[in-house]
């Protein structure tokens, strides 16, 4: 809502909020008047290193040269909460620095970097601690050793931010769940129990009807062999067999396939024995980066049961739904032709 963003912009009086912490404590803007404050909105359950990062952030601001330790009040606020709405924050990281008069002197929306924290400490020194209408830094004498402490906490902060980024990349399910719960949804539909038959095993899932078969396999069943390329039926990376026929798992909902036999690339080999097509792909260099390979393999193995012509050109036409950005096509065609010749033999 633009008007909320405007009312919480730098140079304006902070909204007349009442903050409630997770532990039940609460505070209003009036109680904060008379001293500068920092309000930090942190998405919950989003960032596994959140608590650690927040502690470092807190320590770093407290230790910043020229900033008295008593000055900042750090709040670990719900970015979906009422106060967040008043500040125009929508589920994101956000930090607001208020001066003693309750005027917003600095703000940042989005994840914090160490540079942002440097900027914040500068803002605290030059603006939040200064009387209104001036930009002169207050006459504060740094405590002994404060510079060193600041540098140490700054390094720790950077380390936790980097760690958080790595953890986030490794846990897409958690990230996705959070983004879904924060999305504006016109209709609420419950997740329902769905049992899929994947590679001969029953896989019981609890999913919403809108979960595609691809997402059900990858994000819920943990079968990440099937790849998500374009997610719009244009690349073939998500190809699986449904009742023996090659289909695109991104263009169908899992809930529609409770009575079907689904085979993914994980189901091609028999134990340690590769499917003939897998062995032929290796023999003929039918891949480079390998991302499209599961889809290519599923398409190629299904092709053996389809009325596809015998020429290389026929194979190319029949395989046109599988895009290989590395251009391993000659190897793919050779592998398929070899397996077809053998199985015809």
């Amino acid at each position: 809502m633009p008007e909320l963003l405007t009312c919480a912009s730098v140079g304006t009086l902070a909204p007349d909020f009442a903050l409630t912490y997770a532990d039940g404590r609460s505070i209003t803007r009036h109680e904060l008047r008379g001293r500068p404050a920092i309000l930090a909105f942190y998405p919950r359950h989003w960032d596994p290193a959140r608590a650690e990062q927040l502690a470092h952030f807190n320590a770093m601001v407290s230790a910043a040269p020229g900033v008295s330790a008593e000055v900042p009040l750090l709040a670990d606020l719900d970015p979906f909460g009422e106060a967040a709405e008043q500040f125009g924050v929508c589920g994101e990281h956000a930090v607001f620095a208020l001066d003693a008069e309750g005027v917003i002197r600095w703000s940042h929306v989005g994840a914090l970097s160490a540079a942002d924290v440097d900027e914040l400490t500068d803002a605290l020194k030059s603006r939040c601690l200064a009387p209104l209408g001036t930009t002169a830094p207050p006459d504060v004498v740094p405590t002994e050793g404060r510079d060193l402490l600041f540098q140490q906490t700054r390094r720790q902060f950077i380390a936790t931010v980097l760690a958080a980024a790595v953890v986030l990349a490794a846990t897409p399910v958690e990230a996705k769940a959070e983004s879904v719960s924060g999305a504006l949804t016109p209709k609420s539909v419950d997740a329902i129990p769905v049992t899929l038959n994947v590679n001969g095993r029953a896989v019981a899932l609890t999913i919403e009807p809108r979960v595609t078969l691809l997402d059900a396999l990858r994000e819920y069943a943990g079968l990440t062999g099937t790849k998500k390329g374009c997610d719009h039926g244009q690349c073939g990376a998500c190809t699986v067999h449904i009742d023996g026929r090659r289909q695109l798992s991104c263009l169908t909902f899992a809930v529609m396939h409770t009575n079907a036999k689904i085979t993914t690339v994980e189901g091609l080999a028999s134990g340690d024995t590769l499917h003939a097509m897998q062995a032929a792909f290796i023999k003929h260099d039918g891949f480079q980066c390998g991302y499209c390979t599961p889809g290519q393999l599923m398409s190629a193995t299904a092709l053996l049961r389809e009325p596809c012509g015998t020429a290389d050109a026929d194979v190319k036409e029949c395989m046109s739904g599988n895009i290989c950005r590395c251009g391993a096509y000659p190897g793919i065609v050779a592998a398929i032709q070899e397996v077809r010749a053998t199985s015809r033999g």
Partner: protein
Amino acid sequence: MRPFDYTTATSSADAARMVAADPNARFIAGGTTLVDLMKLEVETPDRLVDLNMLAEKEPALAQITELPDGGVRIGALVRNSDTAWNTTIKSRFPVLSEALLAGASGQIRNMATVGGNLLQRTRCWYFRDTAMPCNKREPGSGCSAIAGHNRMHAVLGTSSSCIATSPGDMPVAMAALGAVVRVRGASGERTIPITAFHVVPGAHPEKETVLRHGELITAVDIPALAYGQRSHYRKVRDRASYAFALASAAVVLDVQGGTVRNARIALGGVATKPWRSTDAERHLIGKRATPEVFRAAADVALAGAVPRGENAFKIELAKRTLVRALTTVAEMA
């Protein structure tokens, strides 16, 4: 993607009732167009009624059967691959098999159904982009393509409201073959000739067919056609396979002693609906099957074409595509 309620139907009548009762409900069969557009939030149904389970309860919905007069009935749930590979269709109506195999990819043909393919929606990039005005997606918001990037857009059957191309191949072949669409609604069944099934955009591009909400396609009949095996589908696209038509031609031709006795012509990739050209057919009938006559017929077929800039090349391309298709069929033994 927006959440939706998922329901399965116990009969085709039940499915039609369920969708008719809910203005924002949609049928789903293959899902290849619908799921794609739901991800883009171009389609935002509140409820999906899954038709796939009906194949067991009403087998005719998923079968191809020969009609007593030599025609063929294709159940609405028959997958495009199965229609394309069907031996009766390959021998009696090769143009239909060729059109199906020229469309999409092996995977998509295994999913897409005859009924769904008739309702495939345009690939107009403005229609697919909810940030852009589009009269088809949001009536009254304007057409971004007329003065925008329109290389892929239609030159036939357009209006000042919409120039979106009808994307399918199968419906073009069916238009040439004079197919009849069978539908079931709350008030019973009716049949609609395919040429009357799709409508040009006019002032209401949001309306693409004459289907009423809740009416369910149950089958498509291909009427007997003595010279149906003398047919061909020619498709020209930006790459050799797995691309939408820039221009395509479905041709059925009865040539005897070098003279055209009968002709069926439909164009794809250049029009707002599967474009049967009876004018071009009339021009051919009774004339010698020569390149000059074919070229003149192609001129007739494209006589009403309106270029909009980037798509002007399609007029000549469509003519040459049609001449090529006519030549191919005329040369058949």
